[in-house]
């Protein structure tokens, strides 16, 4: 045999061996170990506890507040151009997100829209946790120039001048102050708005400013009461866990494919996804730096280090005068960790219903789940702060199995149909 053919043979054999190593699946175990089974069960929706109390929001579970919040959520009058409502970016038909890289209200923002199902379980809101309650979170987009672009004064006026809103508001929160005196209550005013709005706000009497901010805070509480109705429903994975109660064999259930089962095994093991994506919502709702690059041309986000600073100075936080909580109940804010340790850390996203929430990451930097998995396999050095994730030695077939498992987490919301459509007026 000539030397050249021998070399070709060796090269061919090496290539075939490499391909086999990359693509041959490891057989599934016949039974999960006790430890694996406990981890799998910890992820099931059946383990989701009841909604946590929101002590800062006295109307969090009031049915009238939910109906009022439902009306407000879809109302485009809560915007500078009468075209933007909460539902513009949190679209019920798209899992309460928008399919865009970054949200677009009045204009484009810098952040990817987060879905809302199960949001009421989080301790922190926004990607950097700059808000410590669902009701307080709901206020920020209203006054953000790129989102709704309205002011709290205009919100108060809308509530006061719309009969049905006025009735709901007064039943829930007590009598509205008279806002007719335009010397005391200008048409547009906010401490966060454009220069003219800020100037108008500064000229207002302190007690009048308080009255308007109180109405604004209460609107956030009604919006939160509505959003507490939005909950994820069972997916193929949850049906699989239910089937596991009747048979301990790994493959007896038809709820998930063999590739998905292999992906589940990786998820709770070698791929280490469960470290942060834990619990029935597949998130610890905490903050991690995983070296996600900023969007092209944008400086890296400071993340949680900045988010906690903002949450602590927010007048609408748990300890503020608009919160219904006793300061002793604000333990999350009191013991939260910020500072340099948290530079570049963003909130862990839920992995339920990822089909709706592409593109991914805080600025929608990563288009597909395949690329997200590649990102965690590589675990590159972070541009700011440090990457907590370590490189994963996943083979090509394993990346595909992990991707297949994520499809088993898509399911319809466990929310009554009435809350998923715009309310009739």
């Amino acid at each position, binding site marked *: 045999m000539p030397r050249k053919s021998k070399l070709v043979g060796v090269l061919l054999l090496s290539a075939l061996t490499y391909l086999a190593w990359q693509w041959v699946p490891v057989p599934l175990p016949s039974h999960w170990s006790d430890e694996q089974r406990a981890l799998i069960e910890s992820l099931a929706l059946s383990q989701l506890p009841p909604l946590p109390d929101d002590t800062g929001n006295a109307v969090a579970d009031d049915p009238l507040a939910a109906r009022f919040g439902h009306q407000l959520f879809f109302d485009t009058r809560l915007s500078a151009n009468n075209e933007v409502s909460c539902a513009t970016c949190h679209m019920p038909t798209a899992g309460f997100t928008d399919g865009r890289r970054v949200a677009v209200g009045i204009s484009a923002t810098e952040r990817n829209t987060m879905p809302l199902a199960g949001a009421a379980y989080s301790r922190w809101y926004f990607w950097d946790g700059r808000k410590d309650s669902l009701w307080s979170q709901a206020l920020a987009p209203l006054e953000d120039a790129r989102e709704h672009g309205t002011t709290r004064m205009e919100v108060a006026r809308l509530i006061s001048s719309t009969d049905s809103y006025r009735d709901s508001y007064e039943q829930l929160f007590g009598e509205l102050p008279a806002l007719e005196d335009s010397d005391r209550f200008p048409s547009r005013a906010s401490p966060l708005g454009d220069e003219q709005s800020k100037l108008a706000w500064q000229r207002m009497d302190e007690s009048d400013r308080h009255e308007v901010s109180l109405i604004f805070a209460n609107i956030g509480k009604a919006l939160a009461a509505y959003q507490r109705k939005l909950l994820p429903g069972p997916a193929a994975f949850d049906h699989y866990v239910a089937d596991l109660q009747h048979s301990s064999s790994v493959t007896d259930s038809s709820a998930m494919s063999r590739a998905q089962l292999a992906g589940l095994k990786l998820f709770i093991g070698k791929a280490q996804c469960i*470290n*942060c994506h*834990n619990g029935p919502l597949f998130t*610890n709702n905490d903050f991690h730096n995983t070296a996600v690059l900023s969007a092209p041309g944008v400086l890296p986000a400071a993340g949680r280090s900045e988010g906690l600073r903002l949450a602590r100075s927010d007048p609408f936080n748990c300890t503020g005068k608009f919160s219904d909580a006793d300061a002793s109940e604000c*333990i999350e804010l009191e*013991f939260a*960790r910020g500072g340099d*340790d948290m530079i570049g850390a963003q909130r862990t996203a839920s992995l339920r219903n990822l089909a709706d929430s592409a593109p991914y990451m805080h600025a929608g930097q990563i288009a597909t789940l395949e690329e997200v998995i590649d990102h965690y396999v590589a675990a590159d050095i972070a541009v700011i702060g440090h990457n*907590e994730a*370590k490189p994963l030695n996943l083979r090509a077939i394993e990346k595909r199995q992990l991707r297949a498992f994520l499809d088993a987490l898509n399911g319809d919301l466990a929310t009554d149909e009435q809350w998923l459509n715009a309310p009739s007026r």
Partner: protein
Amino acid sequence: MTANRIRDWLTGLALVLAVSTAQAATVQTQSTPSGLQIEMQSQLQPLTINQMHDWVISLTDTQGQAVNNADITVTGGMPTHDHGLATTPRITQQLGDGQYLLQGVRFHMPGLWQLELLIQIEETTYRAQVELNL
């Protein structure tokens, strides 16, 4: 005993130890320099991730006497992930009898956690470390 059986037995033992550490949620250690016996008891039973909870730290000296009026700072993290605690716990109350209430602890990931204690008693600084497998 074959190598496989030894390996299985060791794996089983490691699991039992890990689980018992997590569920007992009481850990003991000694200080450096020596002189203090430290016991930490979680007020969350069983100890689970993602829940804010408190611990009671008990200090005794070499004669078994309770040590009061110590200044204790608790930090820590996950050595395999190079990150600190998810929260900033601190001692909020001296309970008497050498006991201190540590509030604001939440572990947000399963795995090995280390808690580092810095204990100041008059002019002496003691250090101690405990490990928890969650």
